[in-house]
């Protein structure tokens, strides 16, 4: 029996009259890479924003088995979600561009360091316990920098990095927050094939060696099919398929959503009949 890490039940998100996510239910497992795929505008990022506290869902229950036991994400204030062990990256990279790469990774460990600095008071007097905690934070940052191949860049401003490295840095930063579940919003967008392959390796390593579950939105199907254990397919805010990659590949509903329907199926029968009549006459 696989342990679940995230249970989404009847999630609906409405913006005025627009239903971005419609009664979505799925489960992500602790030792899995779960991918959410679907055409543009299917509501994938909206799901992420609901999970990470940026949107309050219209209805639905989002149970996350985090560091402090099960918690209902929809009831948390946005910034508290990360404290339970759910970290995310953004579709349009959001780094602290003016700060150095290392600083970006240390900021990600803010809450831990804040406690260690006695909410600033101990840090102001230069307490040894704080200096130790800061050195540990730097070590943790160093570990992920080495793992993502950014160690040479540590002291450069994050904004000066090339695009592919910025993507990696954003993932490294999320990892420094110490997540149980890492949510990645199109991490391979804009990467070249070699960088995409490296990303795949990193995600597999996270799952296998670091016990970090991954929830992934991605358009690069070859990457998804290669590394995902479990795929959820959205179209117009609804779930149209859910299962392992082999099954998803053959699912007629998925193929229809991606390739579109053939012409005569799409047209209402009376119009099709009209067309046939005029074509014949």
């Amino acid at each position, binding site marked *: 029996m696989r342990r679940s890490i995230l249970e989404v039940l009847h999630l609906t998100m409405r913006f005025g009259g627009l239903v971005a996510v419609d009664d979505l239910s799925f489960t992500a497992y602790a030792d899995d890479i779960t991918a959410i795929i679907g055409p543009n505008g299917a509501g994938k990022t909206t799901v992420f924003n609901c999970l990470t506290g940026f949107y309050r869902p219209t209805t639905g229950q989002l149970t996350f088995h985090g560091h402090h036991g099960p918690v209902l994400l929809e009831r948390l204030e946005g910034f508290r979600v990360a404290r339970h062990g759910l970290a995310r990256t953004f579709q349009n990279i959001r780094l602290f561009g003016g700060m150095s790469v290392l600083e970006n990774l240390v900021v990600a460990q803010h809450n831990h360091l804040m406690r260690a600095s006695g909410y600033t008071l101990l840090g*102001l007097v230069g307490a040894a316990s704080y200096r130790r905690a800061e050195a540990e934070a730097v070590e943790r*940052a160093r570990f992920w920098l080495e793992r993502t191949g950014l160690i040479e860049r540590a002291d450069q401003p994050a904004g000066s990095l090339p695009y592919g490295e910025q993507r990696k840095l954003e993932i490294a930063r999320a990892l420094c927050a110490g997540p149980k579940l890492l949510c990645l919003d199109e991490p391979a967008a804009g990467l070249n094939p070699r960088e995409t392959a490296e990303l795949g390796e990193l995600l597999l390593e996270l799952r296998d060696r670091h016990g970090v579950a991954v929830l992934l939105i991605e358009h690069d199907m070859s990457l998804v099919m290669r590394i995902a254990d479990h795929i959820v397919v959205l179209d117009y805010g609804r779930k149209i398929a859910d299962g392992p990659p082999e099954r998803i590949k053959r699912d007629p509903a998925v193929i229809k959503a991606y390739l579109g329907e053939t012409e005569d199926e799409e047209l209402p029968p009376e119009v099709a009949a009209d067309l046939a009549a005029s074509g014949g006459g």
Partner: protein
Amino acid sequence: MAADAAGAIGPKLKDAALAALVAIALTVPILGMETVPGPDGRLTLDFHFHLVAIAAVLVFAGRLALSLLLRGRQLRPSGRSGAVAEFVSRHGTWFGLAGIAFALVLPFMPFASRYVIDVATTIVIYVMLGWGLNIVVGLAGLLDLGYVAFYAVGAYSYALFAQWFGLGFWICLPIAGLLAAIAGVLLGFPVLRLRGDYLAIVTLGFGEIIRLVLINWHEVTGGPNGIADIPRPTFFGFPFTRDPGEGETAFHELFGLEFSTLHRVIFLYYLALFLALVTNLFVLRIRKLPIGRAWEALREDEIACKALGINPTNTKLTAFALGAMFGGFAGSFFATRQGFISPESFTFIESAIILAIVVLGGMGSQIGVVLAAAVIVLLPEIGREFETYRMLLFGAAMVLIMIWRPRGLLAHREPTLTLAGSTGGTGTRGGGR
């Protein structure tokens, strides 16, 4: 070649003509018309259109000469001075120490007249205000146009507590800081969701509210008359007076010196320097602590901060509170230095000057603030020769500096910690003057 030159001069002529047109529009009301009392005592208009014509011709010729001389080169920020800024920032510790050393011996230099020390004290106070506001604007990126409100809260706190309860400066100082910090939090709460322009407008309003309260709350603040006879500072209980009261020892008696009014001026200078250095030390330290990094992260991207579990509310409020606290300290000093305060001293222009110091210095740079404060206080002083045109000159100089260095005098930022040196040894440090 000739055709090339002719082709190039066309747009330049057009550009110069445009500048001349603007000059005409501007100078018609300023130079072209003058109101003079007519024979029957009524005001009549006198026209001097020849002056307008002269101005237009001058602008046309000047603009044309400028564009011909620059020959397509833009008047753009120099790259070389960026290297200078980087050098100064990287060796900030040394520049800071040299600055502090200079500031310490300044009162004993041969050129240190009362006027020089007074101006130096003003600079140091603006440096301190700049460092305080730097927390809010430079680090946390919250544009605050009402910083003078906290300066006022500090000044009035000291004045009132000293008058009513006879408390001394050193006891009033933390009280003033605390009250200013509370004012900072009060301002912070309603503006938590605002950023940029909108935040600037609300803080501007807050500054005016505090000033209007000071004017209208007669019973407490004395209204527009202000508060006079604020206790002057004493040297740890020894007053700076020629004839101390019964049982008191004056400062000059204590040290067996000839009485001089300069003693108090020098003491005030050192007091200001001490407060400023405390501020600097505090900001340098806190910048390297998690809260300081969180401020900077918040400035860079608030949404990413939230996703990393940083509480934006608390982070912003601490920035407001701590920035305000140093404003309050400076306000207390201002009150004891002047001996008299009124709402007149806390107008919007003060906020604007302090903000100008932070922006001119380079957001977040400690040494930059020192340079900018010196420039902003000294420029009008030097400009005294030019009398009426003093502020015009001041404005022109500010515009030129911002064209030359659009991101401030020292915009270079050193990381708060580096992988090589664990905790970064050379932050952007700054010193006294």
